């Protein structure tokens, strides 16, 4: 199931440190994501996963090291400019603009783009025909599954090179979790690089090419997904074996 990982790196962390006030969060993190891959970042609560995503997006500025998007260092850039480079995120719990309509949500996904976006619009609606019926509805009134579609659709409207997924399985019904991961594969097959941040190691590794394990801000394991699945330490700590 793994695809060749020969593309150029689209997203890289090189020795990144971050701090919240004086507190050291990420400690010398190296991550490299190549074009066309699905890469997952695994870790428990407070391991620094969310900070990693915020660092990509410039919401947290590294105190040392570099974050590179498409080979370009984005340290100190404004979030908007990083988004413009083709980074887009589906946040945990979807976080739609509940008071806006589904259509407005999709449109705001393409906020930074100019020109004709109808092709992307059609592509999203083709991918999620359910949304077509709901376009005029307020996003807050959608069901859980539909909200998920709208959130992914909104992120795709930005035509991202790399899509960040924050905990796509968190607090979701099994049916939605399965759907979600299928969706990730589908998006990836259509040519988008995906970076998944997950607690559910089993699920994430089953679709990923490569995985990183984060523990209290440090990358403690980094290997191909297949190797991680086979790693005994990994199996004991994260995959719930012999619990």
């Amino acid at each position: 199931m793994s695809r060749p990982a020969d593309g150029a790196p689209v997203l890289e962390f090189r020795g990144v440190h971050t701090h919240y006030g004086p507190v050291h969060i990420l400690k010398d993190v190296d991550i490299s994501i190549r074009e066309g891959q699905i890469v997952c970042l695994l870790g428990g609560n407070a391991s620094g996963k969310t900070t990693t995503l915020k660092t990509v997006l410039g919401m947290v500025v590294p105190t040392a090291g570099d974050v590179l998007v498409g080979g370009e260092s984005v340290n100190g850039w404004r979030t908007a400019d990083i988004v413009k480079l083709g980074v887009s995120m589906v946040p945990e719990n979807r976080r739609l603009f509940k008071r806006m309509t589904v259509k407005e949500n999709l449109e705001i996904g393409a906020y930074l783009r100019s020109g004709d976006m109808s092709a992307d619009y059609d592509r999203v609606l083709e991918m999620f025909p359910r949304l077509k019926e709901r376009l005029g509805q307020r996003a807050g009134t959608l069901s859980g599954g539909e909200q998920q579609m709208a959130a992914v659709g909104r992120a795709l409207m930005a035509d991202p090179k790399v899509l960040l997924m924050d905990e796509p399985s968190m607090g979701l019904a099994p049916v939605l979790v399965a759907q979600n991961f299928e969706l990730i594969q589908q998006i990836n097959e259509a040519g988008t690089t995906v970076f998944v941040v997950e607690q559910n190691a089993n699920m994430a590794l089953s679709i990923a090419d490569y995985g990183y394990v984060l523990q209290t801000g440090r990358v403690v394991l980094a290997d191909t997904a297949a190797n991680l699945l086979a790693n005994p330490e990994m199996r004991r700590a994260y995959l719930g074996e012999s619990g």
Partner: protein
Amino acid sequence: MAMLEIRGLRKSFGGVQALAGVDLHVDEGEIVSVIGPNGAGKTSFFNVVTGLFLPDRGDILFEGKSIAGLEASEITKAGIARTFQNVRLFPDMTVLENVMVAQHCRTRSGIFRAILRTPFMRREEAEIEERAREILSFFGSRLVGYRFDQPAMSLSYANRRRLEIARAMATRPKLLLLDEPVAGMNPRETAELTGLIRKLRDEQGFTVVVIEHDMGVVRDVSDRVAVLDHGVKIAEGAYEEVSTNAEVIEAYLGRPAGAGR
């Protein structure tokens, strides 16, 4: 007589039906799981039962008496306590204080006793603290010792979940409502908490209702499972029964449970 009996419960928010006529009963000493897809109304169900929201229609009987329309604090006093999906402790109170404050509705000293520091008040204070320590010791070594005086916000995620359960226990409820108690926990912690939920019933004598997505936990703890979808109960019964129900598989599980989770 059922401990909790819910009849035709309805609740809508601005045109969205969160609960569209739910019936459910919970007998004393049972552990009942409530499962269902996101947005099915599970948390709304808890919120209405505990009085944070008023029901639109229907009735909630607790030990035979209607509690619909009571203030949340009165319902807690009547004997229903809960935890929250997204862990809502009092973050800056210490671990011990979090548990002490929850005994509020079981204690009586008022302003004058507090100002005059009467013997009654001092005895009650000592008892509150004693009981808080006792409850925290239920979780083994996790929340005792130096942790008593740590602010709740400094706890690890799993300990926060445990503390929330301890706080609910401190209100001396008969019925405990746990909202996704293992969400965000790793496999080992999940296993431990599963055992704890059973102990809550077996050793402490609480009746328990659990909302949970982790089907492993649901299988291990439940006497009975109720499935909600779009605010309606679509199935109810033993785990095996529910997990093979076609409607449940379609709305919630996606594929038969056990076929690799």
